[in-house]
Every structure is written in C-alpha cells, then in structure tokens.
C-alpha cells in the first residue's frame, strides 16, 4: 500500500472543502443570509461579493455556505438512520438466513423500495407540512433497505466461512458472532455504501427542497436557491449555475472518495497490487 488512490485525494479534498465551509458558516459568513438588501440586488461577482448577489441582494457565497450546512446535515442524519436501523436488520436477516425473520425483513425492504424517497416525502408533507425534518425522514427511511441489503449480502458470504464455525464451536452466540466477526469484516462495504448514500442524500435533499418539500425559507438550501433562480434563468442564469455547480462538486467529491476508499479497502485489489 505504497500509494493512496489519486481519486481519494481529490474526493477527500472536495468533500473537506464543503464540510469546512458548512462548519465555518456556524461561526461566520461574509454576509448575513437572513437580511435582505434590495439595494445591492443582482450584483455580479466582484471583490465585495465573490459570487455575486441574488434578487434579494443576499450574498451567494454566504447562501452556499449555509446551504452546504443544510445539505450535509440532512444527508448525514439520513445515512445515520439507514445505518443504525438497516445494518442490524441486515445482520439479523443474514444470521437467520432463510427463516421467517429473514423473509420478513427482506419483504419489508422490498416494500420500502416501492416508496421512492420523493413519495415518502410527499406523504409526510401532505400530513405534517413541509420541513427539513421531512426530508431527513424521507431519505433516511429509504436508506434503511439499502444498508440492510448491503449488510445482509456481505454478512451471508462471511457466515459460510470456517472461522464462523470455529466461533460457534467456541460457544459464541449469534449476536456476539455478528458483532465480533461479521461487522468488522463488512465495515469496508458499509463505509463505501455510506459515502454513496451520503452523495445520493445530497442530491435527494436538493430535489426535495427544489420542489418545496425540504428546508423552508428563510433557511437557505441549495435546492431552494435553484427553485428561486429558475424564474430568472432568462435574465440571470448565473443564479442557477452557481448552486448547481456546488451540488455537482460536492457529490463528485463524495463519489470520488467512495471509489478511492473502495480501491483502498478492497482486499482483492490490494492483493493484486502487492
């Protein structure tokens, strides 16, 4: 393992950039995003406003920084929901392979797959009204079967190995084997899937807030910024292009990092490289 995969560097760099911007936005942004300043509306990029201002005179850079915070928070919590619920379910299904429990978990997963996160968001919004929490819930629920499947698939191939049999001969319970032997050996899979779901979460959050089912004004979010910019696409396309590029770079960064991690952690690739 003499060299780290190059895409890992690029990806981690891009992701770190956005994460820093998001964290920084808690302490400081160039301008206050909740203050409207019509006097300086629609300013092009300048030394004063690096990325220009929108139709309410808000600083685009500040908006993007706070938007990154919203996006990352929604995606992280949604991935967290998926891992915390999906992985134990997947491990349990694999441990009891072929049993009614396995069948129940997998059919439940299939059912959730029939509700794309947008549909879940529609349902939740229709009942409780729109909010960022809805977006988190909708994306998080959809992540559960994803992680359950990955965990189950990875765990099942490990359950067939002899060291599991050895652990059982040593009197270890199924739960203990899952925690001690299975989980560490599928951690790679989960980390890689985690970055993928994280980037999908960013995309989904943008989509939901674009159609008004996510974070509500005045909280800036990248999807909201795009929705606002749409009406002005004839006159000021810059307003639509900047937040879009932010999404693309963030997601690209996460995907590159995921690919890099997979190459780094995949024992098959490591072996051929050695």
């Amino acid at each position, binding site marked *: 393992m003499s060299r780290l995969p190059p895409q890992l560097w690029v990806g981690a760099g891009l992701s770190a950039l956005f994460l820093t911007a998001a964290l920084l936005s808690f302490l400081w942004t160039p301008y206050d995003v909740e203050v409207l300043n019509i006097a300086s509306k629609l300013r092009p990029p300048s030394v004063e406003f690096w990325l220009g201002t929108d139709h309410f005179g808000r600083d685009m850079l500040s908006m993007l920084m706070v938007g990154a915070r919203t996006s990352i928070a929604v995606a992280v919590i949604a991935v967290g929901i998926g891992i915390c619920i999906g992985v134990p379910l997947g491990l349990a299904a694999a441990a009891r392979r072929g049993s009614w429990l396995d069948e129940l978990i997998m*059919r439940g997963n*299939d*059912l959730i*797959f*029939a*509700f*794309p*996160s*947008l*549909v879940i968001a*529609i*349902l*939740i*919004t*229709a*009942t*409780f009204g729109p909010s960022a929490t809805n977006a988190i819930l909708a994306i998080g629920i959809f992540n559960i079967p994803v992680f359950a499947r990955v965990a189950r698939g990875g765990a099942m191939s490990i359950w067939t190995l002899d060291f599991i049999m050895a652990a059982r001969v040593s009197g270890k319970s199924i739960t203990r084997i899952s925690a001690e032997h299975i989980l560490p050996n599928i951690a790679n899979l989960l980390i890689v899937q985690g970055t993928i779901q994280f*980037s999908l979460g960013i*995309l989904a959050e*943008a*989509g939901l807030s*674009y*159609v*008004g089912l996510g974070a509500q004004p005045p909280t800036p979010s990248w999807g909201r910024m*795009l929705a606002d*910019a*749409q009406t002005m*696409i*004839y006159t000021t*396309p810059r307003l*639509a*292009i900047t*937040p*879009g590029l932010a*999404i*693309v*770079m963030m*997601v*690209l960064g996460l*995907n*590159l990092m995921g690919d890099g991690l997979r190459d780094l952690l995949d024992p098959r690739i490591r072996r051929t490289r050695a």
Partner: protein
Amino acid sequence: MLRYILIRALSLGLSLVVASWVIFAMIEVVPGDPASFMLGLNAQPDTVAALRAELGLNGSFLTRYLGWIGGMLSGDFGTSYTYRVAVSELVLERVQVSLPLALYALILSTLIAVPVGMIAASRRGGMADFGIMGATQLGVAVPNFWFAMLLVLVFAIQLRWFSAGGFPGWDAGLFAGFKALTLPAIALALPQASILARIMRSSLLETLHQDYIRTARAKGLSMGQATRRHALRNALIPVLTIIGLQFSFLLAGAIIIENVFFLPGLGRLIFQAITQRDLVVVESVVMLLVFAVILVTFLVDITYALVDPRLRRRA
C-alpha cells in the same frame, strides 16, 4: 416457470395490499380531522360536516379503508375537493404525460448506457474507458432538475431548438408530443445512464473473468466473440435489477422535472394538491405511483427468469 410467475404475482398482490395500508394510515394520522385540515382554519362547521360526509369520514377505520380500496378497484378514486371532478379523470389525463416521459427516459438511458458500458469494459484502461468513466462520474453527480435548467438555457433560450416548457397535448400529434418531452427525457436519462453505464462496465468486466470465458477462448472464440456470445447475457442480469430500480427513480424524477418544464403531469397535480390540501388526490396519486413501481419490479422478476435458466426450475 408458471409456478415462478404465480409466486411472484402473489408477492406482487401482497405488496400492494400492505402498501395501501401504509398510505391509508399515513393520511389517517393527519393532525386533527381530515375535513377541517383540507378546509383550513376558517371553515364553517356545517361545511366541514358536509365534507366529512362527502369523504365518507363518518364510518369506522375499516369501513373507510374498504370503501377506498373497493372504489379504486372499480375505478372510482373519489372526487377531488379542489377541482370538483373525479380523481380518476384527473389522473388519467396527467398519466398521459408522466408515464410516456418516464418510459422515454428509461429507453434513452438503457440505449445509451449499455453500449457505452460495453465499450468502456472492452477498452479497459484505454483512453475511451478513461473518458467514459470521467463523463459518467460527472453525470452521476449532476442533479437532473439542474441539468434540465441547463438544457433549457442552451437548447431553448440560446439555440431555440426546443420550447422552454409546456406540453401541446397528444392531440397536436405524436411528433409534437415527443418533441416537447425530449428535453425533459434527456435531463432525466443522462444522469441515470451514467449510473447504468458504470454498472454495465463493472458487471461485464466481472463476467469476463469467469471460468466459462476461458473455456470459450480455449474453444477458439476471439475476445469479441466470447464477449458477445457468453459474457453479455450474464452481465445483463445485474444490469436488469438496476433498470428495474431506475424506473422508480425516473418516475419520481419525472415528477420533479415536470416542474422545470411546466408539464401538466402527475407531478404538477400532486404538488398543487399538497398546497391545496387535497388529500383525496394525494392519496390516489401516491397509490398509483407505488403500484407502478411494484408492477415494474414484478416485470423485472419475470424477465430474470427468461434470461437465467437457473431461476426457472427453482423457486
């Protein structure tokens, strides 16, 4: 084979039943009374009571559920509160936009992704592979509705090849209809095609490492012949799963994209219904979307069995 289809069909029916419970229950937990929720805060008590009766809210949970299901089975999806027309009529009109759009995008995505993925796999490590992988990496990261805006910017505003939105209706002719759906379909299809092409590539590469490819080579097949005659069909099996999953993403994506292009599809309908608190419409459209997704999963399962003989006798 017949047994396999029967079991799949049974599971399809079961999923639909459970899905309908979930949807119905979700709408039921609306804070307060659905009727007053729909009418808003300033409604007169007698209007609320009238709506309650109209919505059939006076029965028990079970009777209402059975009424809803029974109605849908006989084609009666209830009446929209805001539009004052049968929901089935509304939906039928809107489906004519959303479904062709999703299918158009699905076909585009598959037609682009499969050959592109094959080229990348067969030129593995070469310039073509490098270029394709780079382009798909970018494609995966692009939100489809933003891509749609860019398309509008370039092809509608700058080049004026397409109109920026709207739908002339199928009465205006098949060509005019498809032309209006072309930009939306491309916006939907390209990001999905990027994912699919990457999966096609890795699946084909993995298949090319199988022992039976070595057998085929030892038989005297060239690498190209071995790919076409042996690897391709096996490599398509995982791709099929993704195509099935993508349909649900495309349908959901179509709902969002319709907003960019002002298309009178299910998406516009459902978002208007949400803002106007028209729960009857929301409930029915969601059920319809879920039905479409489950049906496609069923069709994918059947196609599996056609591609993979190992499934036919098992199960």
